[in-house]
């Protein structure tokens, strides 16, 4: 299982930024089981890149493939199958149902395509949000919401997990706990991690660091 990028470049990004990047307009691939760190300063198109991989946007030239399937050419059903089975994600803007409890947010993902035994409560305890499970996500702090989104992303099978600034509102101790949990789950699946952040994450031991 591979993510293959071929000459990918957002149509809206300045040419100078594309020229300086290690990813834009280059041929590059990510392998299953690999830990990738993507360092991307503001405005370099980090979130756009994540959205391109997840099949949410198509405003780019070049192509991105998940194995043999070109992501931009997948139909709605194929995209849904990819999202529920092959690629999991933690969005920078989290995308939670704010009117619903933390538990409902996680459970609605889990029930779609559950992976392993139900361990939502244990995970919540490990990340220190067990007491927030019944609380509406909308009234949780941003850090708590980040942890809800991380636990949600770990409920399904995947070959890659894409994390877009997953620890931006967490202190180092909580970030380490979250990363440890993510890495454990990734090992269970033999999957790869693509962690994108503004700066290198010091406690994340990546196999490759790529600058966007």
């Amino acid at each position, binding site marked *: 299982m591979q993510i293959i990028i071929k000459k990918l470049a957002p149509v809206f990004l300045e040419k100078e930024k594309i020229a300086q990047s290690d990813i834009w307009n280059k041929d590059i691939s990510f392998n299953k089981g690999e830990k990738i760190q993507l360092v991307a300063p503001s405005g370099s198109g980090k979130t756009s890149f994540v959205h391109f991989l997840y099949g949410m946007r198509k405003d780019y030239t070049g192509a991105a493939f998940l194995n043999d399937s070109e992501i931009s050419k997948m139909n709605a*059903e194929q995209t*849904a199958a990819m999202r*529920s089975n092959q690629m999991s994600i933690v969005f920078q803007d989290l995308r939670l149902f704010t009117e619903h409890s933390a538990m409902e947010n996680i459970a*609605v993902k889990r029930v*779609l395509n559950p992976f392993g035994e139900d361990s939502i409560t244990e995970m919540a305890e490990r990340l220190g949000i067990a007491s927030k499970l019944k609380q509406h996500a909308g009234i949780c702090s941003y850090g708590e919401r980040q942890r809800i989104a991380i636990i949600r992303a770990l409920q399904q099978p995947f070959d890659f997990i894409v994390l877009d600034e997953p620890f931006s509102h967490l202190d180092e101790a909580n970030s380490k706990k979250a990363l440890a949990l993510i890495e454990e789950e990734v090992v269970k699946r033999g999957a790869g991690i693509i962690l994108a952040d503004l700066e290198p994450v010091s406690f994340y031991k990546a196999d490759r660091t790529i600058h966007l």
Partner: protein
Amino acid sequence: MALSFKNIAPFLVIDENKTSRLFSYFGLGIGVLLLLCSVQLYININQLMKERNPKKSNYDFISITKRITDQNMGQDHSFTAADLQDIKSQRFISDATPLLANKFIVSASGGPALPFTTDIFLEAIDNDFIDTIPPSFKWKEGDNVVPIIISSDYLELYNTVFAPSRDLPQISQNTVGALMLELECSGVFGTKIFKGNIVALSDRINSVIVPKNFLEWANRSIANLPSGNATRVYIKTTDANNVAFLDYLQSKDYQVNKDKTRFGRVKQVLQAVVSGLGIFAILVILLAMMLFSFYLQLMIARSKDNLQLLLTLGYSPGWLSNTVSKKWVPVYVTIIVVALTATQAFQYFFQQGFLNGRDDLSPYIHWTILAIAFILIILCIGVNYRLIKRALFNL
């Protein structure tokens, strides 16, 4: 735990606009009930009208003429070959044939046994149209005896009116065949006398019928005229009360025995009323479905953010459309089954109450009603599914 509507229900705004949803259910129920009842009534009308008009064969035989009015008196009222062709080409007319008439003067006398003389007329028609054809109904040139078939009404008139007034003996149906009338046919080529033998009585054709080849020969040999166009045409139809048949006759201004088509005329009016009711019912159903579609669109618009997020999380749009639309399947089925039950109750009370349990009408609904109800269920579910699917794929 299998994935089901229950899992996504909290993320949809379903319970708002309850009033418009309930109104659409109510409207749908009323519309379906009206439609089913009007179709059942339509079937009832056909059933009752048919039963009141028993037929001896599978066909009705009706004679038609062109209407003679104050304005067109004196004009030619015969049917041309084109008229006849047009009549025959109608799908509700199985066959049609002209009634040929004599072009010479004919008088009949009863001989010594029945001392009377009267002018009469002769007509001829294809044998297929005559209900009672004995083997003796044949004539060939040189034969002096001409077989005749007369309307049984004529014998009745003779026995009840004519014979008593002239002190003549009455004749039974069995003895009429023993009589030999004398037929005196006079035209430009002189007078010829034949023996006329009544070989059968007809309940169908109100005339004095002779073999066609005799009449054609006589017109030519006695009157020196071709038989020409007929002024009467006999029509063979499977149902004289067929509304399309009556509409055709009306459009052509052909005159027909009103009694034979009386039920058809009543049926024409009743069917028009019931059809109007059916169209109204379809409009009500359409309105109810439109109201429900507005409710669905509103529900999807209000749940748009959540639905979008479900799709982002990996929910398949196909599964979502299926699952959301399935939610209303029991509702549609219930509404239509209730309407079906009410139609059955209506039919039962119609048959038992209004018609005092007449056995020519079933107290149970016709299978067509079940089929329509089934089609309506499929239609409602299909429309609902397409609507939701389109809305979801457009998110």
